[in-house]
């Protein structure tokens, strides 16, 4: 044990205080005298016990609500990695990148999906959170200020002949490029293409602030002097052939992809149901099929891909986890409450004894 010694002496070395100071009595201000009005936080046993009880009630309540609302969500997930095995095989060879491969996956919706329905693509085992991957992008290029700024984009800065890539970087290069079309099979002969909206699937700030095309009248000339990412079949300004306003860096699918996921398994919003005609209520029960233009290779990294249809509740597409977690927390809090209460009551006598001391 270290012992502490303090020498208390009247010894002073070099006392150099000016003697003519009128008064050296310290100011009587509340701050200096540590007498600021203060509230002494005293957590009494009762308060704490009550707090635990209330927290438990709250957590359990929220948990129940979350679980109930999670139950109302209808979700369909179809993993098409295996189902489109021949396409997958084709894509394993990078040389076949320009060969088109289509694949149709029929499925049956047993119940109507009421309300807004969202279509997602989902990737398994794709490490979009890889550190180098995340960094491999150029925000100043994407905001349109300098289309040739490829500084952070290694290893996809320039093509072999030194032309800067636009959009550059690993994220852009690996963009998910399957086309998924949902058809509603009204009967065996009538297949209606389910109307989908491809706008409104990005953050407002992403679409209007973070991503901007270079300001040229003609988009293709804005991209002059740059080349397309090596994996892309088409340059950025031709991403959406139907909507010319959805091309370049402000393409919605591109923006969604560029918002990198935190986990290796993730789903990204692809389309929203356009609630017209048959679909004003949502997706009616019945038989459907996904027509997929299979471009994105997943076998190379032993990943999988799926397409997801889902509805939402008030809290979004909540999973069971949050509700369960609230339930568990609430239960544990109550457990703690009861054990603390027991301990407290048992020791009350001892406590009284202390108080009387």
């Amino acid at each position, binding site marked *: 044990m270290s012992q502490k010694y303090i020498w208390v002496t009247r010894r002073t*070395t070099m006392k150099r205080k000016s003697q003519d100071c009128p008064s050296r009595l310290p100011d009587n201000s509340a701050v200096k005298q540590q007498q600021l009005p203060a509230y002494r936080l005293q957590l009494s046993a009762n308060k704490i016990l009550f707090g635990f009880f209330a927290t438990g009630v709250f957590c359990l309540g929220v948990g129940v609500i979350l679980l109930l609302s999670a139950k109302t969500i209808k979700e369909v997930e179809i993993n098409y990695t295996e189902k489109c095995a021949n396409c997958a095989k084709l894509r394993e060879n990078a040389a076949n990148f320009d060969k088109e491969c289509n694949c149709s996956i029929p499925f049956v919706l047993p119940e109507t999906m009421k309300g807004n329905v969202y279509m997602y693509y989902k990737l398994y085992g794709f490490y979009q959170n890889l550190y180098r991957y995340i960094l491999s992008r150029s925000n*100043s290029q994407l905001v349109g200020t300098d289309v040739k700024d490829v500084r952070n984009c290694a290893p996809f800065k320039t093509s072999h002949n030194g032309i800067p890539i636009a959009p550059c970087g690993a994220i852009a290069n690996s963009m998910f490029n399957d086309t998924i079309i949902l058809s509603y099979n009204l009967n065996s002969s009538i297949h209606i293409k389910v109307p989908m909206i491809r706008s409104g699937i990005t953050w407002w700030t992403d679409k209007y602030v973070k991503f901007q095309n270079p300001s040229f009248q003609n988009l293709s000339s804005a991209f002059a002097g740059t080349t397309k990412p090596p994996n892309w079949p088409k340059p950025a300004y031709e991403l959406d052939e139907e909507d010319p306003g959805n091309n370049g860096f402000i393409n919605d699918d591109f923006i969604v992809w560029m918002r990198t996921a935190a986990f290796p398994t993730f789903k990204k919003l692809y389309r929203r149901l356009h609630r017209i005609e048959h679909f004003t209520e949502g997706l009616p029960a019945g038989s459907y099929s996904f027509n997929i233009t299979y471009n994105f290779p997943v076998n190379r990294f032993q990943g999988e891909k799926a397409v997801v249809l889902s509805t939402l509740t008030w809290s*979004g597409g909540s999973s069971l986890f949050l509700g369960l977690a609230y339930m568990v927390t609430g239960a544990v809090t109550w457990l703690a409450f009861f054990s603390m209460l027991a301990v407290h009551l048992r020791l009350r006598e001892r406590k009284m004894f202390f108080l009387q001391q």
Partner: protein
Amino acid sequence: MFCSKKKSLEVERIVKANDREYNEKYQYTDNRIHTCKYNILTFLPINLFEQFQRVANVYFLFLLILQLIPEISSLTWFTTIVPLVLVVTMTAVKDATDDYFRHKSDNQVNNRQSEVLIDSKLQNEKWMNVKVGDIIKLENNQFVAADLLLLSSSEPHGLCYIETAELDGETNLKVRHALSVTSELGADISRLAKFDGIVVCEAPNNKLDKFTGVLSWKGSEHSLNNEKIILRGCVLRNTSWCFGMVIFAGPDTKLMQNSGKTKFKRTSIDRLMNTLVLWIFGFLICLGIILAIGNSIWENQVGDQFRTFLFWNEGEKNSVFSGFLTFWSYIIILNTVVPISLYVSVEVIRLGHSYFINWDRKMYYSGKATPAQARTTTLNEELGQIEYVFSDKTGTLTENIMTFKKCSINGRIYGEVHDVLGQKTDMTKKKEAVGFSVSPQDDSTFPFFDHHLMESIKMGDPKVHEFLRLLALCHTVMSEENSAGELIYQVQSPDEGALVTAAKNLGFIFKSRTPETITIEELGTLVTYQLLAFLDFNNFRKRMSVIVRNPEGQIKLYSKGADTILFERLHPSNEDLLTLTSDHLSEFAGEGLRTLAIAYRDLDDKYFKEWHKMLEDANAAVDERDERIAGLYEEIERDLMLLGATAVEDKLQEGVIETVTSLSLANIKIWVLTGDKQETAINIGYACNMLTDDMNDVFIIAGNTAVEVREELRKAKENLFGQNRSFSNGHVVFEKKQPLELDSVVEETVTGDYALIINGHSLTVYDQWFITLFNIVYTSLPVLAMGIFDQDVNDQNSMDCPQLYKPGQLNLLFNKHKFFICVAHGIYTSLALFFIPYGAFYNVAGEDGQHIADYQSFAVTMATSLVIVVSVQIALDTSYWTIINHVFVWGSIATYFSILLTMHSNGLFGIFPRQFPFVGNARHSLTQKCIWLVILLTIVASVMPVVAFRFLKVDLFPTLSDQIRQWQKAQKKARPLRSRKPQTRRSSSRRSGYAFAHQEGYGELITSGKNMRAKYPPPTSGLEKTLYNSTSWIENLCKKTTDTVSSFSQDKTVKL
């Protein structure tokens, strides 16, 4: 920095008086002092050099370098440079401020004026322009400018008195005397200007009590010792002027040599902090290694296939190499685990504390208009952990103002006031003080309240008269009449002063003395006594006597001294009186008064003459002189007739008893190291409750050498095992048998209160300020950094966030056990902080159907949860909510959100698209209900276990402070806090020691007449003899003082 470092080390110093040219060739430093470290030009390089000697800063620098390697760099370089610059700037500002004040005080000191003899004229010169070899004139109460050789003074024989309080803390005056050859120079400027002596002496050193040198003047050599030297920092007292020659100036003076580099004192918290930081660093390395291995494995299994998307270079395909790089990356990413800024925040906290100490009105001593002053900011928290308090000398405990309280004359006690019922009551201020108010010499402050004594005096009780006469005659006090005709007593020990003053007020006025006579005014009539012999006090005789012949021709011996000693020497006829007086003495002692017994003896002429002859023989004897004299003293001081006893109160400093009691309740052991007499020490020990009657083992440790004392202490310790306090009374005796007592101890009020109040306040101080500052440094700044560099918070390094503040928290209750609890807590919190959002975000879409599991949203969610969790933790830890706490706690959350929103704003992104890629994130994430639900759950999950843990701890194992808090609360409900009961003065059966706080040798000084003005010229016949004597008494005096000093240095070793 002074660049005065000599090319060669000075071995000896040669100084010639009044010859600047001669002295210049030795390049001695002048009297300018520099305690400052920097000037404007050198500040930056020197300060930076100093700062980068600290581990913390080097660590940051190392990180910075690592970050410049692109393969490793995982964070942008400004993540490190921001805190580094912040820390370095703050420290630099603090250093600069400190140095500015040093500059200011240096300037003030350097510009003090002193009178210097230049060109045969006395000229005013600034201190800094004083050079070695100059002769300067000092006036009464002036500070000495440099180390001087005393040449002459206003006092006879070149004596002068100095107070060395600044040097060694002793307030009693010390005598210095000039060589007789130089003292003849007097104040004769022309002769002084011609003085051209050469002093050859030791090189500058820091020994305050040693000086050796030789003065060569007019062809003869005179050896010089410490007694001829006046050191810088002393104050001239009781001497209207003196001249001295500068030997050491400025930084060479002993004072400055002593006050050299202040050693940085490390507190135990510093040490613990260092250890913990090392551990954390080790932990960081381990973490890095584990993560690197993990990375290698991942690379091998998964990453390999994932390369399609990255097209990495061939070299990087090696998973081991990748792991190696990853290791360094993680070291950078996780660098915040090592709480380097903790050092800074601790510094800031300490600074704040020292300001609170300086500001505290409760620690303001109005008597001297002195506020408490924290001289160092590094040791504040140690004040809450004091185990031992050392106090030098008993005089620090007492006011050193003695008042004559009671006396017992011829078996009757005076000074006690009896009320109507005849019961003793304490003297109260209501009673009118007695005294001969007719007397012009009356001391109006004399607090003696017994009219019986006045009556006895008026009635002419011979014993009473004799008693007072003795008090007026038997002492070493010098008298002086000031211009107003008032008598001024120059008192060498305050208790003597009290007795003489008492006699004065009771009509026996000591008027003046010469070496051979003492004149007193007895109830209005002047009587001159012939002083025949002066039997001086020493520590073994414990008494002093004078032999006087009164005008009637009778020879009387008057003696006063310790009762134990004097009672042995009484005439057998005194037996009855002795028992009575003895009882009285016990009574006085019980009240904590210092007592002296008083006795006289009538001597017949013939006997005295014989004795006196023998004394003269003995004085002349070469060998065994002291023993023979002592024998003669013994011989004559017997068959004494007891007169009575005096009781003098040495008032304890205000609050000493309370302080001591509180200190011992706080289990702080008190040691008093004193040079006092054993009796006094014990007495004071009892008086201030340090010793109590129920302490049955009081060890008196007497040893003549340090070794013996150590041995004795060891034995005592064995006996005392288990007892928490010892009263060890080490009697270390050196050459001249000067006793030194190691004593158990007390405390000066001012300083005592300081420690005590800090003890009392430390809880609140820490609670308030630690937390406030913690907030500034730990929540705001990292959050600021985090707002920018949110990459920090990805899966692995979320671990570090809570730990980031944990070690800081430890400061509250800083020990290793707590540390591990906190680490566990930190790990738990970080797990909660990561896995709850992870689970909740997994595969989840937001309210607008968009995915919210992008890493930026995830980072924002976690950062927000972290800040709130930390703030809630702090809020729970804060038990004392002032407005400042509110501002800081809520302010830090508010700051976090405002910074977050700013960082994620469109405007900032527009300007720096590369640095602020989080645009829109806060807005998007924080409007999602589910994100708030996640945050809420995280908070509940991380805070609840802590609250439960604390609750159970308080319930099951309440600490003292918990109990006190509860008690306080209960009290508060009932009624305001009771003020502390006034401590009752002890009533002890113990015999109070006689106390006499003066040095031996003054008797000789008086009889030699050395210290008397020329108006009482010593008899010419005895001049040679007295001259011879003078050296001997001065030597004696010196020996006493040096002994005290050396014995003090000795007790440090003893104490080991």
